[in-house]
């Protein structure tokens, strides 16, 4: 009796593990976080159009994604198509794990380079080769309280740094200790990166071999950033100390907040109904006119090791169609990287998204080296040190450049041997 039961159990187990013999080629697709959850809803249409293909989606949490991808690379188990944060592209390009896509885009009837915002497209070009296709975009700009600005005597959001400073000063003064002009969490590097990218001077010199933080441009950005704390316009807080950004924004503890597209949905959901008319988004002000911001977001990449390269590319093309991107936007709130998608009523009519449309024409990519995230963490540490009065801008940026030069030592060694990273 027992052995037969065991046999049946074993048979059940084996048949459960074995792939279903459907006679279709399988495209393995890894997507992260919320995107991995909802992208499945877009796929039946793809499978209908390509009866010979089946897409297998694996959802990976963002917190574990980087490690999992590198482990999969080392173990040779990467999927065919993958969503990749565009700051990770240089790293996987250095690993030579990404299939170059220039020729495929040139031959594609769906993806046309001119339709994409140039700054975003540029983040996918590493060492002159296209390594990914932008899927959705992320940039940082101002979320602000219209009612507080109006009460301080300002009808429109700031377009330049001096205007912005005047508003911050007025709002903080009227707040009498109960209100700050702006919230800049000290552990978030994006606002400072955006301000630094506005300067136009490169943050790394000579194709990412040396630090460029002692430049007058970066120092100007850092001074502007730290002055917001010195003048009392921004509280010296790190993210973990802010219990709930949306509550605090709703209560009017601060009037400006620099954040990204996902917060449009969050603010709509989390702020009370009577506050919904009081908040708006605006492009990031620059030193003397509308300024640039960061070019973030996720791209779709095809790995070199892909077993189904042809089918993988077809999936990338499908997900890049403007209509599919609009459906994706409806599901996630993620903003599409193509201008043609933005012409659609569903996006053009959203007043909170309008500032992003404007900002996306002025986004600049960060330096494309695998070490960039580490350099950013050193940069933000310096900013925190200056804010807390441990060092000053001149000496601090010189010390930062020394650290960054040490981090980039291996790149210089590789370059000297003709193996650019």
């Amino acid at each position, binding site marked *: 009796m027992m052995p037969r039961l065991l046999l049946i159990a074993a048979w059940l187990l084996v048949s459960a593990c074995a792939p279903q013999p459907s006679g279709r080629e399988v495209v393995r697709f890894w997507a992260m976080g919320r995107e991995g959850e909802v992208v499945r809803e877009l796929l039946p249409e793809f499978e209908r159009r390509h009866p010979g293909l089946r897409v297998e989606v694996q959802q990976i949490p963002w917190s574990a994604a980087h490690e999992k991808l*590198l482990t999969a690379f080392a173990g040779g188990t990467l999927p065919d198509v993958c969503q990749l944060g565009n700051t990770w592209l240089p790293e996987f390009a*250095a690993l030579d794990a990404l299939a170059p896509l220039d020729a495929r885009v040139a031959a594609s009837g769906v993806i046309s380079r001119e339709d994409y915002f140039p700054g975003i497209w540029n983040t996918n070009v590493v060492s002159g080769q296209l390594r990914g296709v932008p899927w959705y975009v992320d940039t940082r700009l101002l979320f602000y309280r219209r009612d507080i600005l109006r009460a301080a005597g300002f009808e429109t959001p700031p377009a330049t740094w001096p205007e912005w400073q005047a508003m911050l000063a007025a709002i903080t003064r009227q707040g009498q200790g109960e209100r700050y002009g702006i919230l800049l969490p*000290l552990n978030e590097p994006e606002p400072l990166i955006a301000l630094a990218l506005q300067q136009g001077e490169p943050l790394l010199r000579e194709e990412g071999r040396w630090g460029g933080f002692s430049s007058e441009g970066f120092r100007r950005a850092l001074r502007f950033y730290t002055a917001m704390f010195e003048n009392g316009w921004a509280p010296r*807080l*790190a993210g*973990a100390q802010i219990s709930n950004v949306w509550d605090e924004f709703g209560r009017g503890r601060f009037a400006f907040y620099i954040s990204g597209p996902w917060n449009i949905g969050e603010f709509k959901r989390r702020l009370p109904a009577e506050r919904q008319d009081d908040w708006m988004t605006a492009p990031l002000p620059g030193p003397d006119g509308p300024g640039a911001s960061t070019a973030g977001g996720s791209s779709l990449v095809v790995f070199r090791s892909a077993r189904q390269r042809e089918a993988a590319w077809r999936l990338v093309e499908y997900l890049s169609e403007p209509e599919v991107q609009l459906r994706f936007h409806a599901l996630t709130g993620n903003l599409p990287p193509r201008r043609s998608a933005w012409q659609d009523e569903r996006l053009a009519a959203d007043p909170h998204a309008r500032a992003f449309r404007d900002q996306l024409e002025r986004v600049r990519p960060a330096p494309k080296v*695998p070490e960039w*995230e580490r350099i950013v963490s050193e940069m933000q540490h310096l900013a925190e040190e200056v804010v807390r009065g441990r060092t000053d801008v001149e000496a601090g940026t010189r010390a930062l450049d020394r650290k960054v030069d040490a981090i980039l030592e*291996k790149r210089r060694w590789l370059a000297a041997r003709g193996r650019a990273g």
Partner: protein
Amino acid sequence: MSHPAAWVFIAPALGVIGVFFLLPVAAGFALSLTDFDIYALADFRNLRFVGLDNYVRMLETPLFWQALGNTLYFVIVGVPLSIGLSLATALLLHSRLALFRPFFRTALFAPVVTTIVAVAVIWRYLFHTRYGVVNHALEAIGIGPIDWLGDPLWAMPTIILLAVWKNFGYNMVIFLAALQAIPETLYEAARIDGASWWRQIVHITLPMLGPTLLMVGILTTSGYFQLFAEPYVMTQGGPLRSTVSVLYFMYEEGFKWWNFGAASAVALMLFGLVFAVTWLLMRLSRRVAA
């Protein structure tokens, strides 16, 4: 040693130790002599043998010394506090006067089995500068608001409080078991001789707890040297890296920046440190016992 049969008997244990301990340590040491990083993962020709450079560079990194200082601060303040609290609560629970003993035993042990990630959410609220219960209580007795997690001076004490609260229950249970093993007759005799409560503690309880104290001391010290989860969930090493521990430093080098050569050097350094401290504690206790 001369019996071949003896080797056969210990072979399984030796095999397990070899595969799961000696081999990884040797591999870690070998790795620490290279600059294994993302470029080496791409192409093995990009791997450089760097000798002891990783160690030299580590000793030249101010953040390493800061991490070491933070860790020592945590160990030196946290271990006595933790053991003291465990012992005090164990004595209270062991006392004949204690009511609802099973209830308190369970309640005091509860923090040990909670998840640190869930606990951190609650603690971040408790220690919130503006809305936190702790600052409300302090305000009631006239002490101004303290920025517990945001002030570089206060962040480590807060982490110590969390770690002590989270861990004392474990040692408490060990002490409780040891206390129950002390023969009642010793106390009886002392009481007949007119010994006060304090003298009974000093001359009977503590000496009888000696071996347990040593074991608890060694386990707690080596455990506290490996501080990681508390700063990881509470402060991410901030503010101003005042809560970066050696292990946190290693985690960032290895798993965040993918510099496995440098991370292995830090790991071996920490291993050496914990080994040395444990050895010292053992020797010290042997001398005291002699």
